[in-house]
């Protein structure tokens, strides 16, 4: 074999291994989703879940539980997991920072403040709370994003400045949130705390459709930029030398991921851990070629949140543990082990 044949064979092998990783992740997602649908106050046998999902059986009770209650929640876990995993990966890439996520950049804090604001103002508002809270959360997440990208638009702004701006916004929104909590009535306070824990239980089919539509719109747009995003991993200077318009790519990608995280946290609250961890898990398995890293991060986010959703119903039988707490409690030790076992320095 010539040297070129060897290189090509190596490339094919690497690509095949990554495809295998993605397929394994897809299988894991199917499994966690089935488990998620099966678990709850009444545990349904997996076979019954499968039959109901395939519309094979005519068991009214099972169908009602599966289709009206558990499936939208399980699918929301997937949609939100994908949104958070994907946007975490891109944030880490475009900000050249392994700690970047919607949490560290104040986007989640903005959403939390927005939600709390509506909860506190509560009855004074003329619209239904089911949509007013997410709408306000989304708007304030957007304000946080706009603040970060305004600073990024300043001439000569570095990725470090963006991260610092995000952290500043995080503290600002947390302070404002504390203020709201301080003035809130006990009932409102309880609602705020519950919102901040994050919950998939408020999911309805229309809400799911909104999140899924945003994910479906953003994914192809982001994938189209995957080579340019990969170039950014070599630093701004090299990316520019390769012909990437770094500033406009950063703005474009940041706008899309703002939309993704904004809509995700608006409907389920702050589930912090996934946007940080899913990309790192994906990076360990597929590297940083963003053609693979982006789908893998989305898949990791889906699998983690879906598993956490099932676990949140299993930890205390009959009760629902807040999902945000579960993701952190299960995820953190798992994550630490993974990072420690990874032989290479990944950042």
């Amino acid at each position, binding site marked *: 074999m010539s040297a070129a044949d060897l*290189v090509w064979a190596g490339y094919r092998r690497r690509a095949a291994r990554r495809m295998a990783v993605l397929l394994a992740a897809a299988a894991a997602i199917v499994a966690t989703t089935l488990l998620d649908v099966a678990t709850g106050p009444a545990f349904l046998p997996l076979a019954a879940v499968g039959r109901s999902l395939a519309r094979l059986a005519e068991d009214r009770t099972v169908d009602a539980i599966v289709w009206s209650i558990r499936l939208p929640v399980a699918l929301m876990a997937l949609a939100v997991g994908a949104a958070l995993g994907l946007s975490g990966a891109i944030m880490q890439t475009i900000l050249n920072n392994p700690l970047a996520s919607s949490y560290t950049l104040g986007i989640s804090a903005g959403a939390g403040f927005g939600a709390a604001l509506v909860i506190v103002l509560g009855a004074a508002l003329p619209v239904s709370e089911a949509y007013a809270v997410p709408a306000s959360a989304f708007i304030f997440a957007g304000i946080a994003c706009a603040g970060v990208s305004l600073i990024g638009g300043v001439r000569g702004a570095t990725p470090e400045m963006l991260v610092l701006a995000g952290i500043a916004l995080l503290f600002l929104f947390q302070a404002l949130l504390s203020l709201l909590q301080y003035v809130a009535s006990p009932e409102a306070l309880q609602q705020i705390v519950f919102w901040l824990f994050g919950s998939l239980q408020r999911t309805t089919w229309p809400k799911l459709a909104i999140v899924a539509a945003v994910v479906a719109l953003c994914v192809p747009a982001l994938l189209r930029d995957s080579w*340019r995003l990969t170039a950014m991993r070599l630093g701004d200077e090299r990316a520019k030398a390769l012909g990437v318009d770094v500033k406009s790519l950063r703005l474009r990608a940041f706008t899309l991921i703002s939309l993704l995280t904004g809509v995700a946290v608006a409907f389920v609250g702050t589930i912090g851990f996934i946007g940080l961890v899913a990309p790192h898990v994906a990076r360990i398995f597929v590297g940083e070629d963003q053609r693979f890293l982006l789908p893998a991060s989305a898949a990791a986010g889906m699998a983690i949140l879906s598993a956490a959703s099932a676990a949140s119903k299993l930890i205390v039988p009959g009760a629902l543990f807040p999902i945000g707490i579960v993701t952190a409690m299960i995820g953190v030790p798992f994550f630490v082990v993974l990072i420690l076992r990874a032989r290479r320095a990944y950042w």
Partner: protein
Amino acid sequence: MLSLERLGVRYGGHVALCEVSLDVARGEVVALVGPNGSGKSTLMRAVAGLARHDGRIGFAGGARVGFMPQDFGSRAALSVLEVVLLGRLRTLALRVDRDDVDAAALLLGRLGIAELAHRLIGELSGGQRQLVFLAQVLAGVPAVLLLDEPTSALDLRNQLELLGLVRRLTREKGLATIVSLHDLNTAARFADRVAVLCAGRLHATGEPRAVFTAAMLRAVYGVEADVGADSNGVPVVTVQRACTGPQTDPTAP
């Protein structure tokens, strides 16, 4: 091929490059030398379109510029092959085909690092990394080649081989090449012409034997040096010591 007219770059109020005029012909290698901070990188960044500038930069027929920035290291979890493929970013589709990989493999082979193809860029030595980034720039099939200190981390043999290859490619493909170098003897050996930058101005330009003089070394670098010649007539600079007393003002006429 490449012609710079009264090129100037300012960073804020700081003048990094001032009134530099320089022509590089097809098939010519120009070595850019000068002390730290004299504006070598700035000149290349301007030509590559990465720095706002005054004056005029002319290319023959919209020639493509390949710029290899100074080495800053990289911790990315990207394979060497992926890094070289990025050199073809303009035409790279989501699905990489055999032609893309073959072009990259060919370049890696010419630089003697084909066996590194599937190693991670973050795990390489500085010298290996420089070879990879050279392959990346060449993968873009540039007509104007700008290499910023491409040999700073290379061992003796790799320096010879890399610069030899650069010169050969420049001749074969009719490129216009600018290489910044710190080692004047290497510059004298490999470049057709040298351009000496000092404090952002072009101090001298011409054939090495005309430019490398004891007076230039004193004025630009502040060193006392002997300038001899090897058996081929290529100048050989031997630095003796730093000049005593105040350095002469290199910008004075």
